Structures are given as structure tokens and as C-alpha cells.
């Protein structure tokens, strides 16, 4: 068998741990039932159910893939294929605050790369890695549709617009 490089999608940690079985809480199940009631097929609920799962567990682990596949009567491969296709499903854990810097053209000409480079140096981790205290991770993203108020940094679900390095430092000081 070929070497399992950490970036190889077939690396061992891509397989679910049989010891770890996940389940939706009653409240989450209620949301899931509501989602299912809005679509004519179970498969169509896949994207919203993955969003729901990520809200609960923070990322889409192999165990989540199995759970969602089971719930929606899909193969794990189908679910995994969808997870890897879309950017927003985290395929590994992210920091408590996940900073996503848009560097597309409109943000770039408004100095978005200064913010990106600053984060890189300030946090001392590579994009996608989490800081030692678990608070932050960051990455560069494609256009967030906030070009008129560029540059924009998305922190978890929220947009922070017309950002500067100084404003970002001030914001991060408040994120405990």
C-alpha cells in the first residue's frame, strides 16, 4: 500500500473511528426533520444537514460523514464527495475564531494582502493551522461579495468590512 501522506485524502485519519459514534441531539433532530420537510428528496437536504453538523461539531469529521450518510440514506462516498467539493465544509478542525481574508481583486487593490501577511506573522502558523491556544486559524479565501467595502475579513459567520491591519489587531484583542 502506498504511503499515507497527511495531505493524501486516503490518509488514515480520513477513516471514521469505529469507537466514536456520533448522534444528533433531540434539538438538532428537530431541525433536521424541519429541513427534510422542505425538500422532495432526502438527498436535497445534504447541504443544509452538513451546515447543521458543522455548527454542532465545528468540522466535518469522518464520523460526521458516516452519520449524515446514514441519516440521508446516501453512501459515505457521496457525502464525502460533496464535503470536499465545497469550500465551507471544514475538513479538519479550525480555531475558535476562523479568520478568512478575501484577497480577490477588489480587496487586493485595497491592500488585503497586508492583512493576510500580518496574520501570518502575528499568529505564527501556516494558513489552515490552529494557534497553540486553539483560538485562531486563518486562511485566504475567494471573493466574499463585499467588494464595495473592501477589504473584508470573515470571522466565523460575520463579515468585518473596510478592514485595516490596525482594526484587525483591535478586533482580535476582543476575541477571547
Amino acid at each position, binding site marked *: 500500500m502506498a504511503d499515507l501522506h497527511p495531505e493524501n485524502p486516503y490518509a488514515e485519519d480520513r477513516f471514521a473511528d469505529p469507537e466514536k459514534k456520533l448522534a444528533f441531539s433531540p434539538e438538532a433532530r428537530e431541525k433536521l426533520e424541519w429541513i427534510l420537510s422542505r425538500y*422532495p428528496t432526502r438527498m436535497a437536504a445534504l447541504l443544509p444537514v452538513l451546515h447543521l453538523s458543522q455548527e454542532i461539531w465545528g468540522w466535518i469529521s469522518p464520523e460526521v460523514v458516516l452519520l449524515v450518510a446514514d441519516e440521508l440514506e446516501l453512501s459515505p462516498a457521496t457525502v464525502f464527495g460533496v464535503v470536499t467539493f465545497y469550500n465551507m465544509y471544514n475538513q479538519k478542525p479550525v480555531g475558535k475564531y476562523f479568520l478568512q481574508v478575501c484577497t480577490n481583486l477588489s480587496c487586493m487593490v485595497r491592500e*488585503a494582502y497586508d492583512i493576510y501577511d500580518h496574520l501570518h506573522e502575528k499568529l505564527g502558523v501556516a494558513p489552515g493551522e490552529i494557534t497553540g491556544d486553539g483560538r485562531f486559524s486563518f486562511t485566504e479565501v475567494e471573493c466574499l461579495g463585499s467588494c464595495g467595502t473592501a477589504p473584508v475579513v470573515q470571522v466565523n459567520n460575520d463579515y468585518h468590512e473596510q478592514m485595516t491591519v490596525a482594526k484587525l489587531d483591535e478586533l482580535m484583542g476582543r476575541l477571547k
Partner: protein
Amino acid sequence: MEPLRILSANWDKPNSASIATYLESGGYEAAKKALAMTPDQITQEVKDSEMRGRGGAGFPTGMKWSFVPKNAPKPTWLLCNADESEPGTFKDREIIEKDPHLLIEGMIISAFAIGSNPMGYIYIRGEFHFGATVLDKALEEAREKGFLGKNIFGSGFDFDITVHRGAGAYICGEETGLIESLEGKRGQPRVKPPFPAVVGVFGGPTVVNNVETIACVPLIIKNGAEWFKSFGIPKNTGPKLYCVSGQVNKPGVYEFPMDITLRELIYDHCGGILNGRKLKAVIPGGASAPMLTADEIDIQLTFDALMKAGSMLGSAGIIVLDESTCIVDAVWRLSKFFAHESCGQCTPCREGTNWMESVLDRIERGEGRQHDHDLLLDMADNIGGKSLCALGDAAIGPVISSIQKFRSEYEYHFEHKSCLPGTKRYRRLDMPVGSH
């Protein structure tokens, strides 16, 4: 030319997203009027208005609706495309966050006109978390008032809307990619034909309309097709939202009739170029649109005029670049975007976009080879028109136009291994790119 306040009429009001504000300005009157008309009358009115879709392709909306077969064996669906992912475009977000009821009213009317089954979807890009929250709240308000649900306005028409969040994929703004994604799959575009109007989502006839397009529908019903046509020029009618970003003093969303010129918009309304610098290039219709030079901005911002000039109005995302920006760097950034967003289905686009990005990157690194621009044009020739959807064609737009219009700047990079003096590369070459 004075800015319009039609689509944007409610934006500056306090609590503009609430149903109370919307009702005060005559909200849901158009839906009431429409549901007393026949679907054919509504479609005819929209046809007569000559409205063209605001999402990018500029296809006449009324005609799109009329392609839906009557008495199809499977239910008909209305989908609203709120995936707004074209770099430089941020107009739909304003409508969603500031006047969601205009969109909801438009959907009720459109759904009735195409004979939609009792559920419609707003496919909103996943990053617009706040917008999705605003829409959910507005939908709840509309249900409480009986504007959504069973037997709306006593017409016998049942309709409800679900907000469906995407998960970060530009390609889902392409209508068949959107349909695949809504069905719970990877958002890879379908082979056409069959067109969505015949076989779309869940196998039924499907109409996919952009947010701004649907938001215009209540205005057409309320004021009539002739009123709508009084804005702009023939075949390019109506009030239009223009998104201006980049190196201008006052970026933002501006509403004008479709005959405003690019020069007027940039210099009279957006406060001209940042720091008094000179204009270098304008991308008039989102990242996919071929760029225009500073000499080409005396052009009306219409679908037809821009097409004649070899570019396109697209989603009206106008990105302004000034003389201090290195054009190769700007084009590299757009190519990186397309390479990242290519869905991977068609070889010319999947391989070509990545290859174009790496050639542009090596030019920026001073490792460009003498004929790299010709190589890029050759690649573009092998991508354009050779994939299922328009992403490949979009990706070559900025590359071809920049080489045609700024060829000497490319050549400077080859000879001097650096950017043109006085121009800037924004990224640091020693930094890794994001992990996404």
C-alpha cells in the same frame, strides 16, 4: 444624470428589512394585483418590459418564462439565484439584507406566472449568513400575514419559499450547477440541452432567475411595462444596480437607468480615482468580463454596447484599476480565482485555468519566457468554447483582453524581470497561498 431610487427606494429607511416598512411603501400590492391576473398576462407584461436577466447573461426574462411547458408531467420549480459570487458583484446582497420583502414579493408573482408548485427556493451563497438570517425572518413575517402559504390573497394559489444555503462554490451560480447543488450533489454543471426550463431541478421544468431580476418583477406589475421601458434604451431597459469597487473614492452600489456611461459613473458619482491617480483599466461586468482601457470608458453601460466593445455587462460588477496596479498581477489574481473555482469536470477548463495561473505567476516572479503572452493566448484558444459551462470562457476574458491592451507591460516583465516602474504587486511572493 441623477441616481434612481427605485430598487433601492427602501434601503435608507430605518428597519428597511421589516414587513411594516415594506407595507408602508405599498408593498405586496403588486402581488395582490398579479394574482388577480392570468399567468399569461403577467408573462406578457414582463416580455413587454423587455427586461433582461440581471445575473450575467442578459437573457430576456419573459422569454425564459415562456419556455416552461404547460401541463408538464412533473412539477415546475422557481429558483432564485442568490449565489452572487462573481468577483466585483455585491448588489443582490444589498437587496437581500435591506429589502428582502421586495424579493419575496417578486418570487410570489414569478412563481404564479410560471405555474410553480407550492415550494420555491432561494439559493443563497453560504457566506451570506447574515442575509440568510434576514430572509428567514422576512419569510416568517410574510407567512404570518398570509402572503405565503395556502390560498394567497384568496386566489387559490399556494406558495412557500425555503432559503437554501450554498457552501462556497462559484460554479453554483451557473444555473445547472445551482440545480445540481440544490439536489444535494457536487455543483457540476449539466450538459444542455435539455435546458432547465424543460428538465431542471428534481426532473421538473425549472426557472432560475437572479435576485435583482426577480426584484424588478413587482415594479413592472405595479407600474407597467411602458414605465419600465422609460428607463434606459430599447432592449436595455429598466433601472439597474451597478456595483463599483476597486480604486475609486466612493465604491458602492449605484442605481441608474441603463444608459449611463462608465465615465459618468466613475467620475461624477464615485468621486473619481483614489488619491487622484490616473485610470488604467476597468472590468465592467465582474471578473469574467474582458477589461476596458481608460480610453474606452465613454460607453453606455448596456448589455449591447459593452458586447459591441468586446466586453460584457455581466453582473454589472465594475472593478476599477488605477495606474499604480500591475496588470499582470491583477490578471494573475483573477486567474487564481478561476483555477480554484473550476469544478474539475471538463479537461480544458480544469487543466487550462491552472496552467494559465502558473504561467502568470512565473511572469510575476521574473521567470517569464519571451513568448509567454503568446502561450497564454494559445491556451485561451484551447479553453474557450471547449467546456460545458461558461467558466472556461470567463477565465480567458481577462487574460486575452489584458494581453491585447497591455502587451507592452507583459513584455516589460520578460525583459526586466520586474513590474513596470510605478506599478505595484500587492502580494508578497514568499507567502504561501491560502489552504482552502
